[in-house]
């Protein structure tokens, strides 16, 4: 603060409070509605004070949308994506930044171009691959004549097949495939001074020892940020899980269940249960963001540069 300016200070608080209301209203409505009875929630205008039906509504939503198993699925997917992405991202960024191999620049671009096209944009073709993730390799074998060769020699018809529909791998792998994490790690690795790697070389450490003993501990903040971003991003996935899981009962995620909670056109308008469900579903990523805020903010920013 440079100078005292009571009027401007007051304005600042006023704006921030209006902003706070703006941001928080939807959360508040969800909580309030989730705590009301059907009768209360149907009132026009609605009361903006919480009532005492929260637990009832939560259990009702939990049962109606079968949130137990779905919650487990969501956690499996979110954690799978988070762990998978962090692991692969750190590894590939390490290779790109610290190794001198011929195809380095090609690999770099092959991976980074994927930043341009989010999953939603190429949803149709990606879905097609889910039926058989090994199709590209089969095609390569077919085109190069290897299939024919193998069949001629051994009599075995090579047919690769790996169906990803209704599987955790199908839910997880396509989300791990994009380059956001690699990009973030690369940004960080680029800030490590050359001399640190050289010092470790002089100390007799191998490349992998440098990776484990120096890079990984140093990138802890970035890792937490990436973890937050990935957890939130994969928990909140909607379109992809919708397509890849036809067997919703076993492989559905919680976010997919939201639509099922919306009152039917001519059914009971029990929005209180809907809101209770929404509350349950939005809580885990919200908690993650709230707790990890400090790191997450830093990580999000460094994507820019």
């Amino acid at each position, binding site marked *: 603060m440079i100078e005292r300016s009571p009027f401007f200070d007051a304005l600042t608080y006023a704006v921030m409070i209006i902003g706070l209301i703006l941001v928080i209203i939807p959360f508040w409505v969800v909580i309030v509605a989730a705590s009301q009875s059907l009768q209360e929630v149907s009132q026009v205008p609605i009361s903006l004070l919480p009532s005492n039906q929260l637990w009832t509504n939560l259990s009702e939503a939990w049962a109606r949308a079968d949130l137990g198993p779905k919650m487990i699925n969501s956690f499996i997917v979110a954690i799978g994506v988070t762990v998978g992405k962090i692991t692969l991202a750190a590894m590939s960024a390490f290779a790109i930044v610290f190794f001198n191999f011929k195809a380095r620049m090609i690999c770099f671009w092959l991976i980074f171009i994927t930043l341009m096209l989010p999953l939603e944009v190429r949803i149709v073709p990606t879905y097609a691959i889910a039926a058989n993730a090994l199709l590209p390799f089969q095609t390569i074998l077919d085109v190069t004549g290897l299939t024919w060769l193998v069949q001629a020699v051994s009599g075995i018809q090579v047919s690769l097949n790996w169906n990803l529909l209704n599987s955790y791998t199908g839910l997880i792998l396509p989300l791990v495939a994009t380059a956001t994490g690699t990009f973030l790690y690369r940004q960080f690795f680029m800030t490590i001074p050359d001399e640190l790697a050289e010092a*470790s*070389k002089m100390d007799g450490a191998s490349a992998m020892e440098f990776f484990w003993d120096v890079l990984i501990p140093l990138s802890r903040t970035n890792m937490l940020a990436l973890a937050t971003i990935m957890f939130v991003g994969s928990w909140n996935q909607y379109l992809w899980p919708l397509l890849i899981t036809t067997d919703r009962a076993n492989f559905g995620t919680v976010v997919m269940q939201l639509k099922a909670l919306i009152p039917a056109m001519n059914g009971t308008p029990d929005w209180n249960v809907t809101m209770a469900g929404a509350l349950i579903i939005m809580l885990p990523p919200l908690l993650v963001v709230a707790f990890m805020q400090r790191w997450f903010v830093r990580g999000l920013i460094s994507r820019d540069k």
Partner: protein
Amino acid sequence: MAQITIKGVKKNYAKTAVIHGVDVTIEAGEFVVILGPSGCGKSTLLRMIAGLEEISGGEIAIGGKVVNDLEPRERGCAMVFQNYALYPHMTVRQNIGYSLKVAKVAKAARDARVMKVAQAVSLEPYLDRRPGELSGGQRQRVAMARAMVREPKVFLFDEPFSNLDAKLRVAMRAEVRRLHRDLGVTSVFVTHDQTEAMTLADKLIIMNAGKVEQIGKPTEVYNNPASRFVADFIGSPAMNLFEGEFDAEGQFVHGTGGRMNVSQLNGVRQPGRKVVLGVRPEGVRRTGADTHGAIPAVVDYVEELGASRLIHADANGSRIVALDNDTSEIKSGTPVHLSLADSALHLFSLEDGRRISH
């Protein structure tokens, strides 16, 4: 302790050559300083010894063993970096002990050795701090301890003190000297600070543009610079250098026709030969006008150094600097007479800059 022999070593980056064939032998236990202007390839040479940079041509041997194809860890060298390159997430203890940990030295032995070197550089109170919580000088000492703990055959230093303030630099210099005396390990020290070089070196290697200009003891290099470059580079204030030639009487003609009597240079005074005459400011004296061979000059300005002063003067079109101990006031524009101490004269070929021996 090991001898280092460098034979015809070259370095190219892609197409550009940055080291054009260097031959040096560094004796076991010697403290060698590589001195040269920025960009001349000092670090590159050092890093080739360390194994951090591939050797494009020639051969480097440490302790009689050719190391061209060895990894840094197999060469037995330790290195102190300019920006310390400490591991920021490890404590001082872990930083120093990291190489031992990598080498799978047992914890107890490791701790003992870390303690020993920490004592040698008085770091014991800081062992559990992180580098971020240390001052520049302390960090520097951690970097040195880290190099020492492996008991290497060779110490390599790449401008280790350039981030320290002047006072600390002097203190660290003394410390390095002392450590070298105690440990007697062959050391190669890169710097572009000539005071540092002169005070530390047993042997000085002057480099310029990827070539070695001169190798020798500091006093030797100072008193007998092998080339115009070395003459110009070593010594502060810098040596006076005059381009010119000898006339028929053997007088040196410079600038816009000024003459200097350099009878001392008997035998090399070929009339018409283009040369560079060098004389250090301390070899230039003020004298009376009637002194034989006195050079008339006009004072341009005076630079006070405290105990002495530098007189910058114009002698018939050539700039000349004299170190003067007199304290009487001299205004700019004052005419003075200067004489050159015979023994302080140096002569270089204008063509290739090499010394013309006499």
